[in-house]
């Protein structure tokens, strides 16, 4: 019941929000919904047993028995931290946009809530049908978010995002069908239950079928993540989206979630596990390096942040491919940490753009003098993003690199070179935009308002807190990583 509430409350409130008439009502309803979800999630968190990799808070009802579809929800240590991340940032996002003036606020907040419900639904679903329904549902609100409130190239960006990830979802659907029918043929009963199908995967006779299913599912996940070479929708969509939309994209951790939840348990049983590991490792390492170089070359601050996101997502795939519990849990933690850090980074870009009218780094300068509160928070986020010890980014990236070194030395060396570049583009951008002499032509710039300070400040404190004491979320990630690695023991991987 608890998980159903967490998933359904945002969706129900989305409808209520749509019915409101004014901005004040819309934002209030949205805040009530997100805070309720946060409270329920916190309650779930404190009743969650992080010492076991078993599914908890399970709900199972038969839905369409003739096709083997059921309403099956449940969470484990892979999904709970991501649910927590989403539940924490969402109310803060509503606060962040509290005083914004924009057209059709009721639709705006309604779309935010639909996205939240859909993303939480993906994290909770244990039935492929339900999983796919929620997976596709994330697409529609984000598409409208970009195409209505986006920047100058919003139509191009939204359509590109839509086609790219929709096609990837359809490929993933083919993979789901493949798994579904392979299991159906073997056992004679249809079922779309995720844990059941994952356990049946190893018994599929044909090696080609196994690999095709694996690759089709993987394609759906890595496009959503995204990693090189399927990333080209990312800079456009992230940059053209309104600030709240960019944050929603950042919280859309479903691609990485799919890799940990579905791909890794299947990996040892594919016909060619070493090939799959190589694919993941190469894509991860290249994304880290390539994303960093692209970020270095950007003139637009928001575009730079978008590319740095690509670079960070490379750690998720690299860590998954590392296949030791340190690297896998590090990659999971990277998703959590990235969500927090990037939320602040995109909020900062939005605030700067609004205050100065530009995001071109060279046109900015000395903003710290006029926007001291922003500067403090932003510096902290940038430091976390480049991996300063004591902040969340360091823990994630260090674990990934150290863990992956066991099996994937070559890739780690590539990724290590990227660290220098990562530090360079972060510091260089910060120095040009925030410090130095204030450029008078920017006009009379005012600092972030109270709501924005509160929203960004809370996230900044969390980055510091989890950087110093990651165990509240890292423990359960470790438990699950060890469980996954345990599956591989004796498989010769």
């Amino acid at each position, binding site marked *: 019941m608890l998980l159903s509430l967490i998933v359904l409350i945002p969706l129900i409130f989305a409808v209520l929000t749509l019915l409101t008439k004014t901005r004040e009502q819309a934002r209030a309803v949205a805040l009530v919904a997100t805070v309720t979800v946060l409270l329920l999630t916190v309650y779930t968190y404190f009743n969650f047993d992080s010492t076991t990799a078993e599914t908890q808070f399970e709900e199972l009802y038969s*839905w*369409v*028995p*003739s*096709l083997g579809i059921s309403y099956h929800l449940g969470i484990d240590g892979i999904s709970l931290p991501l649910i927590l991340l989403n539940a924490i940032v969402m109310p803060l996002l509503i606060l962040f946009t509290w005083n914004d003036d924009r057209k059709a606020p009721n639709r705006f907040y309604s779309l935010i809530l639909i996205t939240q419900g859909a993303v939480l639904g993906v994290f909770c679903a244990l039935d492929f*049908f339900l999983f*796919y*329904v929620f997976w*596709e*549902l994330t697409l*529609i609100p984000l598409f*409208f978010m970009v*195409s*209505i409130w986006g920047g100058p190239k919003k139509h191009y960006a939204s359509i590109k995002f839509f*086609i790219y990830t*929709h*096609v990837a979802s*359809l490929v993933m*659907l*083919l993979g789901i*069908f*493949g798994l*579904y*029918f392979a299991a*159906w043929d073997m056992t004679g009963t249809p079922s779309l239950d995720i844990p059941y199908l994952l356990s049946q995967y190893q018994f599929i006779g044909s090696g080609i079928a196994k690999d095709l299913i694996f690759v089709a599912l993987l394609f759906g996940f890595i496009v959503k993540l995204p990693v090189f070479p399927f990333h080209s929708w990312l800079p456009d969509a992230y940059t053209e989206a309104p600030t709240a939309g960019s944050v929603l994209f950042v919280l859309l951790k479903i691609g990485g979630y799919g890799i940990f939840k579905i791909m890794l348990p299947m990996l040892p049983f594919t016909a060619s596990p070493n090939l799959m590991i190589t694919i993941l490792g190469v894509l991860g390492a290249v994304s880290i390096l390539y994303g960093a170089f692209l970020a270095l070359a950007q003139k637009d601050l928001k575009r730079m942040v978008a590319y740095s996101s690509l670079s960070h997502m490379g750690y998720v795939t690299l860590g998954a491919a590392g296949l030791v519990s340190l690297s896998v849990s590090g990659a999971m933690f990277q998703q959590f940490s990235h969500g927090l850090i990037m939320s602040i980074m995109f909020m900062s870009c939005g605030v700067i753009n609004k205050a100065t009218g530009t995001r071109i780094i060279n046109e900015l300068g000395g903003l710290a003098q006029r926007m001291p509160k922003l500067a403090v928070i932003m510096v902290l986020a940038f430091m976390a993003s480049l991996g300063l010890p004591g902040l969340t980014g360091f823990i994630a990236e260090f674990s990934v690199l150290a863990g992956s070194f066991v099996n994937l030395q070559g890739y780690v060396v590539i990724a290590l070179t990227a660290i220098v570049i990562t530090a360079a583009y972060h510091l260089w951008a910060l120095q040009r935009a925030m410090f130095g002499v204030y450029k008078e032509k920017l006009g009379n710039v005012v600092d972030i308002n109270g709501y924005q300070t509160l929203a960004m400040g809370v996230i900044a404190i969390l980055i510091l807190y989890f950087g110093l004491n990651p165990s509240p979320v890292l423990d359960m990630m470790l438990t699950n990583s060890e469980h996954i690695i345990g599956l591989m023991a004796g498989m010769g991987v």
Partner: protein
Amino acid sequence: MDIMLFAPELTMVATGLAVLLIGLFLPVNSKKVLGYLASLGILAALYLTVTSLGTNSLAFYDTVSVDALSQFFKIVFLVVALLFSIAAIKYTEGSAHVEEFYVLAIFATIGMMFVASANDLMVLFVAFELASLSTYALAGFEKKNPQSLEAAMKYFLIGSLSGALMLFGITFLYGVTGTTSIPGIAAGGAALAASPIGLFAVVLLIAGMGFKIALVPFHMWAPDTYQGAPSIVSSLLAAGSKKMGIVAAFKVFIVALIALKVEWQIAFAVLAVVTMTLGNVAALSQTSVKRMLAYSSLAQAGYITMAFVVLTPMALGGGILYALSHGFMKAGAFIATAAVVYMVLSENKDTQNPDHIDNFKGLGQRMPVTALSMTIFVFALAGIPLTAGYMSKFVLFSSTIQAGFAWLAVIAIINSAISLFYYAKIVKYMYFLPGEGSKISEPLPYTIALAVAVIGVLAIGFWPEPFIYWAMEAGKVLLAGGI
């Protein structure tokens, strides 16, 4: 023989005759009653059909059968007829020809119902023609509107040609096997397969039924007719009459001509791919919503045709479920368009192209119920989860993969992705582009018809179990007869 097997048909005949007779004595301004009467009659027939699910029987010297297949398709036709007749209460308001309009629609439905029940090609043909003749007249119902007349004329000419081709094909089958009974022809399959005439008959029958289903390249009439005919008549054509072609093709090919399976399977594979692709691509650039829906219904017919290629119980069940879902979605979409056309014409009588997509701008504010229903219908047509369209596609496409036709499923899925663009375009016009003019009170009959269709679309989407069960049962009837 139990005459009560045909209680739904008899109810329909009685309703039709009653409407015709009472209409004679009513003044124009109280002819609204006829609409209520017709809707009640159809509702009663629908009830009788639903309760008769599960009966298996033959009647009239084995020329007519009552089984899961026939009853399921009768439900499809009656549902469409019901939506049509509720919406028509508003459309026919003030017309002097209300009774003719309803009687034609009711008789067309009776024709469709007998096609679904036919166990003999003669019955099938006569019933087919009954439905066709009635709809020719309906398409030209707006006697003073040249577009409507052109639509009717085109439909009539091509329809008669296709009827003739079909009859020609039937005569060849009779010539080789010596019978017009569908199981009889199936029994004589060996003779058909041995003779070149069998193949010739297949070609003629595919052409004849292809016209009705509007498969490419026999589709030319469909966009013109759907666009020109009154919107609610288009709903009957696209959602009802097209399904009659499909059920007829199911019976003729899968049951009677199963011996020639290899030949027609390839033909249907090509037709399915070409039809869905051309339908979706052509729909992308349309500015007339009715024309767009016409092309979209080509595409949908292309998906259903996949069932002929795959031929497993699940695929046939999927195709049959799709037929029902399409009935709700497409009839609903045309009725929503009818409501918009009504609104546009009531504001300015001389508007050209009242179904132009520009007239949908700002509909979300101006006609909230219509806009919301239309959104649900087009999303369902596109196959967005938790709608009837998604469920049907799920069953149909997944069965295609199961049977090893992955390439066909991939083409269908890509097509489905393309289709989302023009469907989303309608939604964009309704909700995201500002419209001119103020809020309008939406006519109640249209609203009720839309609500019924929305309930149908969502019921199949959320609780598909009984629908899938009966669709599968209907599919089993086909395969049990043939193999």
